[in-house]
Structure formats: structure tokens, C-alpha cells
């Protein structure tokens, strides 16, 4: 699990270290955009913007789709999935705990019943 996170997050972290890339994510948060539009918006060459988008894409933060001659970028879904996966891991820990708690409580219940029967005799 740790290794998975290390490589996984190194990519996100690297992708976010650059102000232009953070700007691109913000921009895409407002709506999908073509690489050309992004290049114009950030006063960059098409090649430069392609590189930035490539880094974001590798980190799973952005997805791109080519329609005709236009490559459109949109925000990736990964962040939401990560949050869900993390909550699920936490849930599993508690679930495992509670299953063992069930056993302990069941034992207490049995014991109490047995004691109750003894007392009534």
C-alpha cells in the first residue's frame, strides 16, 4: 500500500509543483478547454502547453480527447476516486474491529444468560 501511494502521489505532487499547471487545473475546473485555448490563455506556445498537459495527464489529473484536429482537456476523476478509496480503507479497519467486538459482546451476552440461569435456580 505504501509503495503504491509513493509512486502514485509523487506524480500528483510533481504535476502540482508548477504554477502554470495549477492554473490549467483551475481553468479546467471552470470548463473543458482545447490545448490551443489553454496555450493562448497562459500566453504559451502550443508545444509548451502540450508538455504541461502531458504531465497533468500522466498524474491522472487531466484527461484529453481528440476530436478532429482539436484536443480537448478536462479534469480527471482521480481525486474523487482517491478520497473514496481512502474512506473505504478506513471503513474496512472499523468493520474488522467491530466484527471482533461482536464476538466479545456475544460472549458477554452468553455469560450473562448463563449467570442469570444460575441465579434463578
Amino acid at each position, binding site marked *: 500500500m505504501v509503495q503504491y*501511494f509513493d509512486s502514485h*502521489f*509523487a506524480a*500528483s*505532487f510533481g504535476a*502540482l509543483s508548477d504554477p502554470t499547471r*495549477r492554473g490549467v*487545473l*483551475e481553468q*479546467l*475546473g*471552470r*470548463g473543458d478547454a482545447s490545448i490551443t485555448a489553454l496555450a493562448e490563455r497562459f500566453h504559451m506556445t502550443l508545444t509548451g502547453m502540450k508538455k504541461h498537459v502531458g504531465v497533468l495527464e500522466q498524474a491522472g*489529473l487531466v484527461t484529453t480527447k481528440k476530436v478532429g484536429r482539436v484536443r480537448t482537456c*478536462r*479534469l480527471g*476523476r482521480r*481525486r*474523487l476516486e*482517491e*478520497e473514496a478509496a*481512502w*474512506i473505504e*480503507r*478506513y*471503513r474496512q*479497519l*472499523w*468493520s*474488522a*474491529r*467491530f*466484527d*471482533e*467486538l*461482536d*464476538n*466479545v*459482546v*456475544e460472549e*458477554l*451476552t452468553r455469560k*450473562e444468560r448463563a449467570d442469570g440461569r444460575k441465579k434463578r435456580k
Partner: protein
Amino acid sequence: MDEKRESEGTPTKNRTEVERKSERELVVTRTVDAPARLVFEAWTKADLFRRWWVPKSYGLTLLSCEMDVRVGGQYRLVFRHQDSTMEFFGTYLEVTPHSRLVWTNEEGDSGKTITTVTFEENAGKTLLVVHDLYPSKEALDSGSTGALPEALDQLDELLASLGSSTETK
């Protein structure tokens, strides 16, 4: 959840729910098929608590478990994981038999986490609500929950501002 059938003797397990209520709060809920006084006992007697708090599947060995369950009393659990040991300790702030336990968790360096457990009995079953209030969002994300790595904080902040637009997709 409102199943009428008698679950006694059947091994069906009740569902554990987790909800992140806010940036600093996590809430876990679960029903236990027993009265609150027994469930409370399992949470407050060290020899019982140690049998369930560390799930067997997690590869941790509980070396010791001391619990002085009264207001101002301390608890301390020591685990071994492979070659290292970890401690989980704090102070009980509230102890209301069969209904409520509040304790601090103090092993982190970023402040105290406050855990509130309520035991709500209904028709012989107990609804457990475990509420964790972390000192900060960062503590929750990277804390003892084994939770989100720190690298995500930056991403979190950024994407929080984008949240509304991604959710509608």
C-alpha cells in the same frame, strides 16, 4: 438496516458506515446486536477492549493495554508492528456509563484528537457512533487513521475550489 428477522445465531454482520462530516471530523456508525451495557463493558474493560480494538488481520501485536476509565484517567496501548513499536494514548474527558465516552488522543505532534463514542440502545440493540474531531484538516488527512498522504493536501486545496464544477460532470 431495519431488518426484523432475529439475527441471533446467524453470522450476518451489521454494516459499518463512515462519513467525513467536515474537514476535521470523521464519523463511524455501526449497530451491535446487544444491549448498551454489554457493549459499553467491551469498550471500557481493558481485557475485553484489547481483544477487538486491533483487528487480527492488521499484523499488529498489542503488547500492552492500560485503561483507567474515569474522568481524567489515562489510557495507553502499545503495539508492535514488525520491528517498531507504536503507542496510542490519551485521557478520558467524559465517562457516562452505558451511553457516552469521550477521550483525547495525544500521540500526534499536531495537537489532540477528540473521540466521542455514544451508545444508543434501541430494542436490545446498540447503535454506536464514533466521532473523531481532529485538531486540523492536515491531522485528519495524514494522521493515525493511516489516511491521506500529505502530498494530497495541496491537491485537496486546489481541487476544493473546483469541486462544484467536477461534481456536476
